[in-house]
């Protein structure tokens, strides 16, 4: 039977090397996590007086950190946990949906916005902001801005011949991520203060969606590009609408990419710190804040921090376990063949 291997099947040596490489990589990944785990069971004195590696043999494990985090800090941790879960899940889903449709559009349609129109639009937007800042009611400002824009488009806009392409749009989207958050955090704070959304989950969901959508667009674009367009064309000839094609054909075909992207969006939102710090007070604090909080004037409380980090990893691991099989080989190929 063994002779019947496909020509691709690796030799035992290759298998051995593969496992060796995987094993080394696992060690690199796992050792820090192991250290985290045993630190969560150490007394402060065991952490401070030198490296101890093995519970029971080196040091006597203690549940004191777990008791403190789940007991004394319990209400805070539970609230932060719920906030993180709600915020991360909703913003990841929203960003995935928006990003996937935009990515689909950028791979299937040809956009040719005129440079002049774009410049005009930005100018009008600046005009609106300026008017609003000078005290004009925002409804009036928006109306005026819109009027100027349409008027300008009819007259000036036609004179400009240069076009932007899809790639330019995509590049503009991702360029919104360049500025480090620390620079924009105060204007963002003021923005949400004006909207009355400070210390709400909504504020966090909105901001995470906005900052993560470009990533969703870029990643999904590549997955969509690899899907052959002939199936869609067939469906279109059969009379299916664009929306139906997108929903019932394209998205299922891009499932591995969707799942991978979703996982990434989720962990980005799950782990975000700086915006959470600014936009939340008591009610909507998230878990990363709890991690950072374990370092106070008395130094870092490694034992508590380890517990909180472990609590943060667990759900992501479970989710990854559930979703991983969707990133399986053959989904696309099978569907295309079918």
């Amino acid at each position, binding site marked *: 039977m063994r002779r019947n291997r496909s020509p691709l099947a690796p030799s035992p040596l290759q298998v051995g090397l593969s496992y060796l490489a995987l094993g080394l990589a696992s060690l690199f990944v796992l050792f820090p996590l192991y250290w985290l785990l045993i630190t969560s069971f150490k007394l402060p004195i065991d952490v401070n007086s030198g490296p101890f590696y093995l519970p029971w043999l080196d040091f006597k494990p203690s549940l004191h950190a777990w008791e403190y985090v789940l007991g004394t800090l319990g209400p805070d941790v539970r609230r932060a946990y719920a906030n993180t879960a709600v915020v991360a899940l909703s913003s990841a889903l929203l960003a995935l949906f928006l990003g996937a449709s935009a990515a689909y559009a950028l791979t299937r349609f040809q956009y040719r916005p005129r440079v002049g129109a774009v410049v005009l639009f930005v100018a009008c937007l600046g005009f609106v902001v300026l008017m609003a800042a000078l005290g004009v009611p925002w409804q009036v400002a928006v109306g005026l801005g819109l009027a100027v824009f349409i008027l300008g488009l009819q007259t000036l806009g036609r004179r400009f011949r240069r076009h932007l392409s899809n790639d330019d749009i995509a590049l503009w989207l991702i360029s919104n991520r360049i500025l480090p958050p620390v620079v924009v955090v105060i204007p963002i704070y003021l923005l949400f203060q004006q909207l009355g959304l400070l210390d709400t989950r909504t504020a966090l969901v909105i901001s995470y969606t906005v900052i993560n959508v470009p990533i969703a667009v870029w*990643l999904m674009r590549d997955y969509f590009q690899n899907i052959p367009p002939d199936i869609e064309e067939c469906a279109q000839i059969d009379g299916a609408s664009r929306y139906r094609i997108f929903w019932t054909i394209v998205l299922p075909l891009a499932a591995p990419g969707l799942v991978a992207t979703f996982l990434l969006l989720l962990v980005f939102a799950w782990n975000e710190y700086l915006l959470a710090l600014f936009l939340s007070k008591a009610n909507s604090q998230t878990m990363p804040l709890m991690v950072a909080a374990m370092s106070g004037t008395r130094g870092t409380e490694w034992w508590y921090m380890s517990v909180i980090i472990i609590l943060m990893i667990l759900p992501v691991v479970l989710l990854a376990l559930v979703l991983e099989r969707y990133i399986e080989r053959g989904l696309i190929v099978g569907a295309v063949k079918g």
Partner: protein
Amino acid sequence: MGERVQSKQAEAVPRREGVWVRLVAWLERQAPAFFLLPTVLVILAFVLFPLVGSLYSSLSRLRFSDGGLELSFVGLANYRKVLLGSEQVHFLGQPGATGWVVGVMGLLVLGVGLVVYRRYRAGRPVWVWLGQPLLGGLLLLGFAWLFLSRLWPGTHMGTLQTTLFYVLVGTALQYLLGLGLALLCAERLPGTRFFRVLFILPLAITPIGVAYMFRMLTDTGKGPLVPLWEALGLGGFSWVNDPWGARLAVLIGDVWQWTPFAFIVLLAALQSVPQEQVEAAAVDGASRWQIFRHIIFPYLLPASATLVLIRLIEGFKIVDLPNILTNGGPGTATESITLHAYFAWRTLDIGTAAALGFLLLLLVSLATSLYAAWVLPRARGQV
């Protein structure tokens, strides 16, 4: 937005009477707008104001006056301070006039000249080269000089060079490691499901948590690597006291956290490689390297280009790791631009922080446009 949009496909819905049908047809015609506009509008709504606001604050100085804060306009003073004034060495470093830098730069210039010359010989008009490529080439040369001239002992790396180091080396390592692991996990070996989940794990930890974790691991007094250190005769040596040791520690943390990003993206991209092509090539006797190079890799290129772009952009913003691991020390050895801005911002020197942010924006925009002009089209097979 006044964009003229055209569907690639001819409009396929035949016109029939009835409001409903006409609505459906209209929706169908407007599909390009409906797919893209929500994203564009959401971003515009929440990005424009912070952008303008922070641009203004980079031109002003913050002060506390009775009843609140007050921004006074100071023109380009903050930029002047960073580029020419007291923060110059901190940001741009201290160059050393060493011969080898001049040599390397000379070689680079020669290389660019050679390419131009070959183009010229090949019959392409040189004036085309005077536009974007020349500008881009000069930019690259500028970057190279800024970076190389601060590498020699006796010179002093500023936050700009440190950031470039993290970005360039970190992205390369993450990509290569991620690619290797993705290829290994795409083979159908027993147990790869376990590894797939395992290799995603580091992403699940908040960057701050990763930083604290590496702080524990790199501790030379009570960290787990102490016996190893002592066995190597490095008992009295602490890598966080040495500039390059500390940078290396930050880099390892960064690679640990972000390799999974490359891994997961490439793993998903590997799924689109048509299996029958691979098998056919194998039957034809192609070596594993040939299969990878000529069949698999082309399918990974678009995703790779995207991935590298995203990591470039994100990498420039590295802040939590150096902040927590070393607080930018020893001296300013591990301080990135964002951390530099963060330190200023923490003392409410918002003007300097914003100025640094916009200098970073300029830098990354330049790097991104070079990348978009030269790398992306090739990776996507558009050239």
